């Protein structure tokens, strides 16, 4: 797993690569935890490099979404690989996250 977080004009761009599973979800959470306190931040989560996510990882997505909303911000996820999208579909998470095909669409969507 490899995460890069960049501050952009729109807010934050989080690029997630590799696998998020029970062995490293803690590291994942630690590296994005500082975003929990960003007031009104728009966070763009690039999942194009994400190969696998376990339920532990989904929990962190969920936490991030909740925290960001409390701070008046929003979380936009884009460019999911099909197998990741499937996990989101199966678990019904597709309905509670804002998911976009790519960065451009995510930026321009309300």
């Amino acid at each position, binding site marked *: 797993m490899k995460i890069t977080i960049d501050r952009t004009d729109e807010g934050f761009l989080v690029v997630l690569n590799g696998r998020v599973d029970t062995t490293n979800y803690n590291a994942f959470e630690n590296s994005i935890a500082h975003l929990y306190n960003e007031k009104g931040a728009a966070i763009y989560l690039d999942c194009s490099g994400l190969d696998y996510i376990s339920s532990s990882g989904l929990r962190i997505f*969920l936490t991030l979404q909740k925290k960001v909303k409390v701070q008046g911000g929003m979380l936009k996820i884009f460019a999911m690989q099909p197998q990741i999208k499937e996990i989101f579909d199966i678990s*019904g998470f597709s309905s509670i996250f804002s998911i976009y095909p790519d960065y451009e669409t995510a930026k321009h969507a309300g």
Partner: protein
Amino acid sequence: MNRNRLSFKIIVRVLLFCFILGGSIFTIYYLFARKTIERESRENAIHLAESAVYKIEEIINPAEMIPNNLAWIMETNTLSRDSIYAFLKQLVRNNESVFAGAIAFEPHMFSEEEYAFAPYAYRSGEEIRSRDLWSPAYNYFIMDWYQIPALLKKPYWSEPYYDEGGGGVLMTTYSAPFYRNINNSRVLAGIITIDISLEWLTEIVNSVKIFDTGYAFLISGNGVYVTHPNASHIMNQTIFTYAKEIDEPKIREIGRDMISGRSKFSNVDLKEIGKVWIYHTKIPSSKWSLGVVYPHREMYAGLRNLNIMIFMLSTVALVLLTIATIRIINRQIGPLSKFARAARSIAGGDFDTELSAVDENHEMKELHDSFRFMQEELTKYIADLKETTSAKEKIESELRIARGIQTDMIPHIFPPFPNLPEIGLYASLESAMEVGGDLYDFFPIDDDHLCFAIGDVSGKGVPASLFMAVTITLIRSMSDKNRSCAQIVESVNKTLTINNESNMFVTLFVGILNLRTGELQYCNAGHNPPVLLNRNQEPRMFSNTKAIPVGIFEVFDYRDETVVLDKSDQIFLYTDGVTEAEDADKNLFGEAALIKSLSENRDKSSKELTDRVKQSVKEFVNGHTQSDDITMMCITYWGKNENKIK
């Protein structure tokens, strides 16, 4: 001493170094000393030779003066026969080194009437006698001593000879011509000679002492030995015959150099005394040459003695050095062995092992201190470890108990409802190493309704298992015949969401099967869609749910859905542990493989079907460690009045 010991290695290296160093110093010293000795010996040889030559010259030069002076007298004065005799006698008497003297006149030169006249004075015992050398038997004009200087018109030293008349002593004759002015022209008038004994020469040359066997020798212009410590050589051998005798061409070369009047050093091997140096130089007034012989062995004898002394001293020094080194090293690194013993003893578990004290403040002390530090730290660490291990063991045993409780919370007696022939049910939960959060449950609500559920708590470990226990308890307590599946899920969701700070969630599928009609009401909260199997159709999955897992939002509109089962239809439920089972290359088992396995086994009983799928998964992962709980549940609906359990 053990060859592998550090002390041994140090000693060997130190001694080797000393040996090489000593050897180098000695070699340099030896070469230098040898060179010095050589140089001094050369100088000494030259000096000896020169001083001998000087002594010889000291005698020869005055001897040469006599005929020269006499020649002058004879050229300017005309003496009578008697006065010539008297004059000659007086001359011999006055010059100790002169054995005899003669004035040999050219024919008719002394007087017209006399053909030849050669007055001669000589020693005979204590007396000095005189006579005329001329006799018809002794025609002196053809003698070398006369002829050579007469022809050369210059003085001449004869080859040495034994004079029979003079008591067999070794003699040489110096002959010088004298002239007279006749009719204004300078005409040879005769030859003046003096005979000199060479005894004194032998004395001078033999007095040159070089060590024990070194010597000096003199050869004449023809190479005849004039003096030599071996008396049999004198007058009997020339240097060339000697060279031939001992078969040493170098001597011949030396001989040639000597008679041509050169001064030179040569190295040569002489039979009698071994390797020698020969330095030779000429006697300027004659054609003779003096040689000094320097025996190598004796020349370097002092050096050799010194070498033996140095060698013995070095040996003693080396032995002392060895002993001292061994003692010093053993004393200095001795503690190492003790430390090693202590380390073994510590490794054996005795942490209180006493360390031998090191007094001096150097590296050994440092080692001692670090060792002591290690000992203390190790003791502390072991104590800590004991504590944490016991704590860990406690946790582990608690975890084991937790897993036991968790397992006990799910039903695991099959077939579960022997008195319900309408259904065949089998379920299995295989835990991964860690306590997981999978759950399943089934129970009759009333005579006609069976409630069942399958779920997966996000994450793993104790938090997940606690969450699972709460969930399973909630499902049981919330299910009654007045609630639909969606209502049960909503109630569970509401309770779980309150104070769920950690945002844990459960994917949950709850179904209520009407045993009489086959109607299945269900609510899927984010769980993997179950598979519906019909004997005559390919397996098909329930559609994906739009509902999110429970525990996320307190208020969420969960909906009921309904499907009607035909007799002998089967529902296969599973958690993501099945579809996301990984092989060593992190490939996932996947839904397609699941469907395939189910399709191949759709005429099997619930238990068999479950076992086959389990087997397929096992074959797929091929021994790779299971990372998630694998939970499966299969329900076969037989319908009413079908008295069969499958």
